[in-house]
Every structure is written in C-alpha cells, then in structure tokens.
C-alpha cells in the first residue's frame, strides 16, 4: 500500500492569512454590488458545497474513515429545523443550532460502535444508518399512529427571506468550518487524526485515545452537516425524507472533497468550487451527457491525480523543492 500523508501541516504564512482575509471581505461586499438573484444563489450553493465537503473532510478526509452516511445528519438537521420552526415557532437560527445538537445526540451513540469498524465495514455501516433513518422517518407516523414527521407528505416551511440572507448564512458557516479545519489541522487533535490515517494501531500503542478523537471528529462533522441541512430546508421551503436523506447528498460531499484533495485545508474549497462551476456550463449544454462526463471526470481524476487538485499541486511544490 502506498501510504499518502493526508495533507501537510503547513503553517500559513502571513501572506496567506492576508489573502484569506481579503477574499472574505470581498465576499462580504459582493451582494452590495451584485443584485442578480441567480449569481448570488449560485455563490450560496458553492458556499454550501464547500461547507458540506469540509464537514466530510474533517472526519473522513483526515482519518481515512470513509463515512457514507452524512446524509443522515443532513436530513436530521433539515427535519429538526423544519419541525422546530413550523411546529414550535422557534426562530430560525436557534432551530439550526438545535438541529446540530440533535445530530450530535445521534452521532455519539452511533459513532461509538461504528467507529470501531474499519475500511469498507465502516463505510457500509454508516450508509445503512442513513438509509434506516430515512425509512424510519417515512414510516414513523404510520407505525405509531401519530402525526409528527408526516412521512412522504413532507413538511412545508415558510418562504425564506432574500438571497442575501442565505448567501451570508452559508458564507458564515463556510468560514467557521474553514477556520475550524485550520485550527484542528494544527492542533494535537489534527496530528492524532492523521496518525489514525497513517497507522491507527501504532497511534493507540503510544497512548492516543483514537476512539475519542474519532468521535470528536465525527460529532463535529455531524453537527455542521445538520446545521447546513437546516439552512437548506429553509432555502428550499419544502422537504421530504427522500430528498433530504438522499444518498446523492453523501455522494456530492465525497466527490467534492475528493476532487479537491482529501485531508487538505483547501481541498473542499477547490473541489466544491470546481465541481459547481464546471457543472453549470456542462449541464446546460449537454443535459443528457452531463452525468457521463462527470463520471469520466471522476475516473480521470482518481486515476491521474488521486490526491485531488490541491494534493497534487502540493506534491509538485514539494517535488520541485526536492529536485
């Protein structure tokens, strides 16, 4: 096995920090100059993609534990937010945070046994969890004879505020995740996560409580996935179990992260932007061939640059320094 170091713990030079800050300020100012709903929505969707890919990255990108079930937390967040807002009259921001808390309440007991599994077993177990959750939400009302989740009828949310609102909400969530990833990468936890990827047994031998670290990462990932699910529910105004627990949400997260580069700070940013931006023209021009092309892109990237765009660029940098 070729063991790939999951990202380099490079400390950001001052220039990079300034650049990141400049980008952030620019993004804050964009809506002031651009009133076009579609452009803002597209940007919002890119932010959401980056945020989702970052959630997956924190857990799976760094540890190499392939989580195929984040759609469960996305759905839990969406439903928690919808129910709290519609039934409980809870304000939106409080609802999404509570949605995140509910997700953590699921993630810890689910993570405890599953995170002991390795490889394909972890992947399939998380997938099974997501599918079981979806089916449970579909069946809940009928089996218990109550009127709570409303099964396949779904829940209608009030029409949300302007695009600017969602643009900024996702911008904030994305930025928070970016900062968290940065801090985690440089912390003891970050090193432990990478150690789990490289040699979990060895890490355990030298006294790293790997299960605890994995649970932390899993819970952080679940929390933010649920928060994003909640915002998206409000954005869409209507949710059904088949839509918010969809395996396609998981797939999107995995592919964006992988294209950009797993276990790197910038990977999700690059991967999500790249995929969204390339999808738009491709899909508009070739609606029927679009998915074939995406399939080819995925295979090409995996074969030609398995470390993703960011990972490959980093490797070149190291290469050119070395030679």
């Amino acid at each position: 096995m070729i063991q790939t170091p999951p990202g380099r713990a490079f400390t950001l030079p001052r220039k990079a920090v300034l650049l990141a800050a400049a980008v952030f300020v620019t993004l804050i100012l964009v809506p002031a100059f651009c009133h076009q709903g579609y452009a803002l929505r597209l940007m919002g969707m890119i932010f959401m993609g980056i945020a989702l890919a970052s959630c997956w990255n924190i857990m799976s990108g760094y540890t190499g534990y392939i989580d195929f079930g984040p759609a469960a937390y996305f759905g839990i967040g969406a439903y928690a937010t919808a129910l709290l807002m519609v039934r409980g009259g809870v304000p939106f921001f409080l609802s999404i945070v509570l949605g995140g808390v509910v997700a953590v309440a699921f993630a810890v007991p689910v993570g405890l046994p599953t995170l002991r599994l390795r490889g394909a077993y972890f992947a399939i177990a998380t997938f099974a969890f997501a599918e079981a959750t979806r089916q449970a939400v579909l069946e809940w009302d009928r089996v218990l004879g109550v009127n709570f989740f409303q099964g396949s009828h779904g829940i209608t949310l009030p029409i949300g505020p302007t695009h600017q609102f969602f643009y900024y909400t996702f911008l904030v969530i994305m930025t928070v995740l970016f900062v968290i990833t940065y801090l985690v990468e440089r912390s003891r936890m970050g090193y432990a996560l990478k150690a789990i990827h490289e040699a979990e047994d060895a890490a355990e031998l030298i006294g790293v409580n790997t299960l605890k670290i994995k649970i932390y990462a899993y819970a952080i990932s679940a929390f933010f996935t649920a928060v994003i699910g909640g915002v998206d529910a409000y954005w869409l105004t209507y949710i059904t179990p088949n839509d918010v627990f969809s395996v396609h949400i998981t797939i999107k997260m995995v592919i964006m992260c992988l294209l950009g580069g797993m276990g790197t700070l910038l990977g999700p940013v690059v991967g999500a932007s790249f995929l969204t931006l390339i999808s738009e023209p491709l899909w508009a021009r070739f609606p029927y061939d679009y998915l074939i092309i995406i399939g080819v892109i995925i295979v090409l990237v995996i074969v030609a640059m398995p470390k993703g765009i960011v990972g490959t660029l980093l490797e070149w940098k190291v290469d050119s320094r070395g030679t």
Partner: protein
Amino acid sequence: MTRMKRVTAILTIVGLLAGFVVVPAARCADKIQFGFSVPLTGIFGKAGKLVLDSYKLWAKKMNAEGGILIKGKRYPVELVYYDDKSDPGVSAKLVEKLITDDKVDLLLGGYGSSLVFAASAIAEKYKYPMISGGASSNKLFDRGFRYYFATLGKATEEVRGCVEMLKGLKPKPKTVAIVGSDILFTSLACEGFKKYSKEAGFKVIHFELFPIQLQDYTSMLLKVKKENPDVLLVGSHTLVAIKTVKALKAIDFSPKAVAFSYGPTVPDFVKSVGKLGEYVFAASEWTPVLPYKGPVFGTAAAFDKLYYKTFHRHPDYVEAAVAAAAVTQQLALQQLGLQPPYTEAKREALMKKLHDIDIKTFYGEVRFGKDGANVAHPPIAVQIQHGKVVTVYPKNVRQTAPIYPMPSWGHRK
C-alpha cells in the same frame, strides 16, 4: 511523481476546463421567452421529457402562425429550459436563473410535485405566474400562494372517477384493497382512493404503502391475495404499475378489477407488459375522445392527431394538461392584451386575470379555485382493452362499457 504522471495531470485539468465556456443568450424584444425547468434525467426524467415535448408542440404551433397575436402584433414564442435532474434544489436554482439571469418574460410549469414545490416558491417570491400541468399534490395548494396554478385536479381528486365508475358496476364490488408507493403523489392518490371508496360504500379491507425502492412485490401482494378483495386499487406511477401487473400474474392473483392512479395511460405501459395489461383501469383527466373544444388546438381529437403526427405517439393526460397550461396563460395574455416586456405590474395583472379566468380548451374547461387548483375539471376513468386505452367513465362520454369482472389469469387466451 513521474514526468509522465505530471503531464497526464496537466492534460486532465486543461481538458476539464475546456468545456468551461459560457455563451450568453442574445435578447430580442419582439418575441416572448417562456422559461421552465423540467426533469430530463433522474427518476422523473422519463415523464419530464413528455412535458418538454408538449411545450415544444405548443411553441411550434404558435410559431407556425407567426407567434402569439396580442393587440394586433404577433410575438413568436421562444422556450428557454433546463434539466433540473429531478432535484428540488436544482429546480429552485434554475427558476431563479431563468428569472434573474436569462431574464425570461414568463414562466411555464415543470413536472413532479417536489420539484414544482421548490420552483413555485421562487416564482411566488419574484411574482411570476406559474401554471403547472405536471404536479397535483394537494400540499401545493395549501400554501396560500397567489401566483401558482394547476390545470390538473388535486391528486386525491384525480382518482374519484375510477371509484365512481366501480360504484356503478354490476354486481357492485364490496371490498377493496389499497396499496401504493410511499412518495407524495402516489400516497395522496391512495388517500383519495380511501376517501372515495368509503363514500361509495366499499369496505377497505387493506391499506398499505411501500417504499418506492421495493424490488419485489410478491410478498406484499400475496398477503393482499389472502384477504381476497373484490378490487385492488393501486397508488402508482408507471414503474409501480408495470411491476404490480407482473407480480399479479406471477402469483396468480386476479381480483375482479385492478385500478391504477397513474401509469396505464402512458404508452410505455402497454409496450412493456403487453397482454398482461389488459382490463386494468386507470384514473385520467383527459382522453382524446372527450367532446372538448377551444382555441389554439381545436378539439381534443385534433390535439391528439397533431401530437401523433409530431411525435408518433398518443398524448397522455399529463401532456394534454401541460399544453393546456401553456394555452391558458397565452389566452389570458391575449384577453388582457398584455404586450411584452412583462413588468411586475403586468405580471400581477396576469395573475389576477388567471384567478377569474373561465375558458374552454381542447383539454376541457379551465377555471381556477382560490388556491390555484383547476376546479372545472371532471375526473374520468379509462381501461385497457385490446391494447388500447379506452374511456369508460363518465357514462355520457364513454367509448365503451367497462369490462367487469376481469377474467382471471387462468381464463385468458
């Protein structure tokens, strides 16, 4: 990293970026652009294609006449559409793109309840009227929207004709079993079946919804067979209907009648199951034999003929409803004499007009209730006889009497 690998990687990136060129659409003032998002791929892809064809037929018809005649000037029709991949998020994004980026003049409705849900919320926000011919879930009408309309009846109402037809049969069936796939549209159909069965005095002895992913229907239907209902009512779309018929044959279950909420009217159904599809009933809202008549397409039969000439297949009621939606918006524009560009005020006037509209078309009468649903449309029932969809209810328009009870599997040729 070898040089070779590096070259491949560069080529990959360059190749990927090559497709990344956007050509902005040119604008022209003396035509009307109608925008819509429609599923061309994904689970609704098949049905979405029908919707697209229907709009294309309408556009072609209008353009052959030189365009829509409004206050003495003709405006050619241009369709601007995108594939929403059967994803509600994408559908919402696209409608927003159509409105703010492509700056289309007006919108047309898409297909699929969850997709139209998301799309119509955007239309409402920007105050663009949207008349859908391909979504009928009751919840769409519970939102207090003012800009959303549908030419179809509500999903629970669509199946009324089927049950009323069964009620009039001799000997009258006594017991019914209802099954259906657990997605919004089909589960609502099941509820409609239940509601009208009770009103008709049938005893509902079985009610079950199953996941849309269910691969094999035999266990479920064997259970229903044991209860021996007179009638099996199925909340379905095309795939569910096909799978159900095949499973009924496999387990040798022949109730006296089988009725589907949707599926058998789609040409795919007969093509796929062949003779097994004989005698099944289906709910419908329109067939070419109905005595409807109106501007643009003429009679129902004329619409059918034109459709067949263009696409070499007969239209299903959803295709008719979609074309009727486009026609309704067009007639409202013509009656008001509203010329483009369509400002917010003009769109509001259009919306108000649609609320009071009462027109006759090839699709029948179109009159919208306060919630936007078409209230003027009577549901009908059809049956597959000799491989053809024939109208069997209501009595005054039917082509032939329903065949009941259907012969059991063992007694067919």
